[in-house]
């Protein structure tokens, strides 16, 4: 009933490089798919100081700034990052000339596709400029080889600006003729539903004609579409509103979706074709919303518009199954389709969802939540009185502002106005949404201070939006002031007073709150996962929470395979009951999960290398664990849900002696017939040995071998024999699946042994530990400036490096030791309880296991803890058991290494079984090896250990080792 998503864990702050790409409206690396990357991957990027001049007349100033080679693009930004900039595909550069200028000046003249010429003067030192030029040359060559240069022509023909200028030019030549075919050339160029269904708003009021004129002039001298250069006038033109016919193309250029469309010709059609007929949750959800997307616009009352909307949304969901479809995307898509073709809209939608509003529409909507939080914080900063009022009367900003951001105001204000905000949004970036949002609140400040609740807030906002076309100063004597609409006032205030809201500021605010948001989303889904459990069984909610944490961690480490999309077309029937999405884990993830909870399901190595001691945890793999997985998979689905895990654990963690014995029995009774076969008895013994593999001493080994011989003896004795045959005769041969012992017998055999009895009574239960899972830390608000998950990863990398280094040094100086921590850790000393009087009658004891007798003899010699252990290096102590006294606790390495031979005999006794050799451990303190804060404790201890070691062994190190150790001290590798 719940999905567990870990993708927020990979949520990284954008790097400087990525921010730069974002600035230039270029795909950030993660976004590029396949070919693009391969083609440009090896080409080097470079930036260089440069002065840009427009190569024609003196129509623009020269701008100092930076030129970036980002193959396959060339980009420039003036120093203020605002006035002037461009991003052009290298393939549109037709000619590059080194200008033969005055000495000491290094300038390149670039002729671009649209007969524009720009001159960039490289102001760096000569060798740097030379390097830049050679890289540029390489990059250009690569584009040529890729055939991109040829693609430019046909691509550019799809852009309306081409026909606009072509018309002007031909108009100049021959007035009559060209007008006639301008209509037909127009249809070559891509356009939106507005062509047929009209654009919203009154063209005269929008002053379309004069806007068009201004744009034509601008585009004539500053390039267009792929080669567009953005000079200051450009931004001003955008701010007064793009003309309808040019709007789509300008959006493409400004957002950079144009470059995606250029780089992936035909991809939109291909996606649709490949997925034809396919249905998914997303396609179903899309269907529901098609008729509620700008329904008042005529195109969306016809199949033509609805069909286009459906295809664009579906294509997006097919290409991005992880995001799929989110309500509000329908509104965006419907809006942009008025101004652009399906293919254009598809790419633009992608840029909006992935780049401009990252995470807004993802299943957790973390981007939305984050930006709402950022907005709130900006309101706090910029409009403190209002913020305090809202806090006082408990009004939530988001009830009104959420749709502003999610649907770019399209759903909140009349479309004509929303589109003008969107023009600015594409031109100046997401900060525009914040600026406009703040202005709305500011302008309505007085009334907002009267608002007492959420409803009143919404109501007020509605009235305001409905009045945007009214005069802002209806009372003014000045007719020009009266002519200013409330919408114009809104934009004016946004860009004047809230110019202080910069991209950087938003980035920083996002950084500040990201951890908080991720945390709240994760704990929200945790709470609902727990709430949605059908039953908690005997667990408390807190315990279920710990189990959830272990599951969550396991999913982070070993993500379960993504739920696959239903196969295309025919196979999916609409009426099959819709499965609710639910996270289920496979065996691999399960092993990780169990290793968090059961001590025997992990391998804990205590490594000490002379510098530090640490615990290394690995996930164990054994048939026993796999068996539990299947045992808990009661529906035979090959996977387990959170509920399955809760139920499974409930079945084993609360058991008393008898129940545990039964659980163990059932676990191994594969066909559930109430009997174990002889093979199953063997498997069961192996399971026991697996659990005991790291216990100290041979008590458990002895117990298992006694168990086996007793079980076999008893089982054989109870086997049905032919009538009248001598009970002392050998039993008849067994069939492989023949029932061998039943639960009652099994119980008796187990109870015959003190070690096993106490194992089933309490030790086994105690191997299940619900403890706070040391999670990968999330950056918190305070550290976020330095932090971010990335840092955590880096530091865990550092940690590994540190560990590796110190291990190496430890090895060279002979101080490297590895011990395994036992799963039960009951027998600290090597004392061992004796086997009980057998329950078997003497006759049954017929072949009373010699092995077990021998074992007892063999195991009598105890290992004396050498009194000389004081001389053993103190750092052999197991660090987690803090209370172990250094002086007494340490065993000398030789004592350990002597031990395995002792067990050889015992090992023979366990004849049939392959067993992991018992590892040895210092287990001075019993039971209580709580591992709660092992990581922290260890971390804290590390540097002290190194210090101590160096002090004690100062002379023992070679100078090189000393240096290394010194480095390590200063490396600060952990935390």
């Amino acid at each position, binding site marked *: 009933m719940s999905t567990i998503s870990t993708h927020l864990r990979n949520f990284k702050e954008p790097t400087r490089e990525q921010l730069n790409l974002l600035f230039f409206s270029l795909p950030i690396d993660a976004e590029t798919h396949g070919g693009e990357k391969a083609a440009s991957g090896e080409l080097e990027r470079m930036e260089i100081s440069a002065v840009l001049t427009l190569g024609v007349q003196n129509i623009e100033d020269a701008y100092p700034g930076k030129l970036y080679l980002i193959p396959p693009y060339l980009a420039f930004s003036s120093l203020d990052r605002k006035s002037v900039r461009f991003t052009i595909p290298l393939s549109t550069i037709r000619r590059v000339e080194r200008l033969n200028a005055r000495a000491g000046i290094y300038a390149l003249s670039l002729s671009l596709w649209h007969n524009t010429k720009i001159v960039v003067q490289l102001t760096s030192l000569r060798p740097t400029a030379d390097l830049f030029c050679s890289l540029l040359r390489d990059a250009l060559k690569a584009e040529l080889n890729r055939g991109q240069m040829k693609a430019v022509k046909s691509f550019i023909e799809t852009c309306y600006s081409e026909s606009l200028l072509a018309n002007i030019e031909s108009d100049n030549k021959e007035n009559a003729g060209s007008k006639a075919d301008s209509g037909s050339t127009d249809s070559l160029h891509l356009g939106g539903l507005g062509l047929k269904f009209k654009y919203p708003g009154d063209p005269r009021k929008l002053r379309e004609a004069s806007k068009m004129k201004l744009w034509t002039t601008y585009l004539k001298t500053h390039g267009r579409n792929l080669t567009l250069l953005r000079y200051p006038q450009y931004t001003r033109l955008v701010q007064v509103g793009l003309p309808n016919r040019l709007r789509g193309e300008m959006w493409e250029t400004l957002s950079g979706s144009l470059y995606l469309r250029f780089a992936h010709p035909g991809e939109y059609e291909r996606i649709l074709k490949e997925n034809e007929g396919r249905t998914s949750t997303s396609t179903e959800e899309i269907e529901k919303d098609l008729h509620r997307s700008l329904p008042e616009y005529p195109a969306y009352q016809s199949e033509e518009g609805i069909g286009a909307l459906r295809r664009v949304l579906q294509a997006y969901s097919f290409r991005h199954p992880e995001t799929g479809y989110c309500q509000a995307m329908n509104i965006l898509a419907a809006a942009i389709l008025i101004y652009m073709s399906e293919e254009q809209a598809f790419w633009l939608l992608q840029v909006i969802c992935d780049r401009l509003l990252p995470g807004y529409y993802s299943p957790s909507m973390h981007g939305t939540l984050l930006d709402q939080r950022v907005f709130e914080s900006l309101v706090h900063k910029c409009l403190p009185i209002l913020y305090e009022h809202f806090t006082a009367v408990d009004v939530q900003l988001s009830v009104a502002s959420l749709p502003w951001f999610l649907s770019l105001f399209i759903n909140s204000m009349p479309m004509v106005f929303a589109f003008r905000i969107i023009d600015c949004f594409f031109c100046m970036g997401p900060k525009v949404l914040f600026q406009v949002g703040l202005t709305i609140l500011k302008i309505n400040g007085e009334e907002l201070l009267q608002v007492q609740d959420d409803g009143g807030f919404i109501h007020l906002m509605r*009235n305001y939006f409905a009045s945007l076309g009214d005069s802002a100063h209806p009372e003014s004597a000045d007719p020009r002031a009266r002519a200013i609409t409330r919408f114009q006032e809104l934009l004016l205030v946004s860009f004047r007073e809230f110019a202080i809201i910069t991209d950087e500021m938003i980035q920083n605010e996002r950084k500040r709150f990201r951890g908080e948001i991720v945390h709240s989303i994760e704990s929200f889904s945790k709470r609902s996962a727990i709430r949605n459990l059908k039953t908690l069984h005997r667990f408390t909610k807190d315990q279920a929470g710990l189990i959830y944490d272990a599951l969550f961690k396991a999913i982070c480490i070993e993500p379960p395979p993504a739920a696959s999309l239903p196969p295309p077309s025919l196979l999916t029937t609409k009426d099959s009951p819709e499965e609710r999405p639910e996270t289920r884990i496979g065996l691999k993830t399960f092993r990780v999960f169990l290793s968090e909870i059961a001590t025997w399901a992990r391998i804990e190595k205590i490594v000490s290398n002379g510098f530090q001691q640490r615990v290394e945890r690995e996930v164990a793999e054994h048939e026993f664990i796999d068996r539990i997985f299947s045992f808990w998979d009661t529906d035979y689905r090959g996977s387990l849900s959170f509920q399955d895990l809760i139920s499974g654990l409930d079945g084993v963690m609360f058991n008393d002696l008898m129940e545990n014995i039964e659980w163990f029995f059932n676990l191994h009774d594969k066909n559930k017939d109430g009997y174990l076969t002889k093979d199953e008895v063997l498997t069961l013994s192996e399971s026991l040995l697996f659990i005991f593999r790291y216990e100290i001493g041979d008590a458990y080994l002895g117990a298992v071998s006694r168990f086996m011989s007793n079980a076999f003896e008893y089982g054989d004795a109870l086997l049905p024999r032919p009538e009248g045959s001598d009970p002392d005769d050998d039993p008849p041969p067994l069939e492989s699946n023949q029932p061998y012992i039943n639960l009652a017998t099994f119980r008796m055999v187990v109870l015959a042994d003190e070690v096993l009895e106490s194992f089933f009574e309490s030790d086994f239960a105690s191997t299940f530990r619900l403890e706070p899972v040391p999670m990968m830390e999330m950056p918190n608000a305070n550290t976020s400036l330095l932090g971010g998950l990335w840092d955590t990863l880096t530091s865990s990398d550092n940690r590994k490096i540190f560990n590796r280094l110190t291990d190496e040094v430890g090895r060279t100086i002979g101080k490297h030791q590895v011990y395994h921590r036992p799963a039960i850790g009951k027998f600290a000393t090597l004392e061992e309880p004796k086997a009980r009087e057998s329950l078997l009658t003497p006759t049954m004891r017929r072949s009373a296991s010699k092995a077990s007798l021998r074992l007892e003899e063999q195991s009598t010699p105890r290992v004396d803890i050498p009194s000389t252990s004081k001389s053993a290096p103190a750092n052999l102590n197991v660090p987690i058991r803090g209370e172990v006294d250094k002086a007494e606790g340490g065993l000398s390495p030789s004592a350990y290494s002597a031990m395995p031979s002792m067990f050889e005999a015992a090992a023979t006794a366990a004849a049939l079984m392959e067993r992991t050799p018992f590892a040895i451990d210092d287990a001075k303190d019993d039971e209580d090896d709580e591992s709660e804060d092992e990581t922290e404790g260890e971390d804290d201890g590390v540097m002290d250990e190194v210090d101590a070691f160096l002090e004690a062994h100062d002379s023992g190190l070679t100078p090189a080792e000393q240096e290394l150790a010194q480095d390590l001290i200063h490396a600060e590798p952990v935390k």
Partner: protein
Amino acid sequence: MADASGSSADKSVQVKLVLLGEAAVGKSSVVLRFVSNEFQANKEPTIGAAFLTQKCRLEDRVLRYEIWDTAGQERFHSLAPMYYRNAQAAVVVYDVTKASSLEKAKTWVKELQRQANPNIVIALAGNKVDLVQPASAPSPTPVAESEDEADDATATPGEATGEQPESLRQVPREEAEAYAQEAGLLFFETSAKTGEGIVEIFTEIAKKIPIEQILASSRGGAGRAGGVGGRTGTGSQQGGVNLEENAAKGKDACNC
């Protein structure tokens, strides 16, 4: 401003009510039926939640419902607390022809009971009963209405065939009723299409709301003019809720 009522002494009690439930069970239709007494394909896109108001007279008291109709898409679930916080009432809707929608309704109920206002009055509404009723009530299949749903993928299968209505039912009334009883919810089977049971939900909720408490604790209960209607900002509803004790809606119409 167009706020006609201002802070004039107004005996109306403001009740915040939230609608929750799986997508397409008919939440918006239920609200539309209650607020404007009509049934039509839902035209209003819901981002987060739609906000509507409606007055309702109960004996000598006027209740002013502030209705938050939440978006049903699963990923908006985490936003729901924003809308149900401080709510005095909730209508959790499921679709009687879709068993899974009752499961979802139950999780909403659980969530509300643990996270919402502890005194919240919750009503469970099994919507679309018109689909499972015998044709005695002349099974409304006029062209106009089937047109509404013709292109709506969510239109329940069988609507067109309409042969054995009872067989479409996936949630027996008794089952849901027993659950509601056990969980302490008001229970109704409703049809936004025919109007059955709709007004009852809101009147029964009104009766159960501890009005005196709200009055005592509210910030004066001075109602602002209610605003219904979408982006055009016009108070679009003329028809009253067909409930005799329903108040006139003069105020709601004033924000044109």
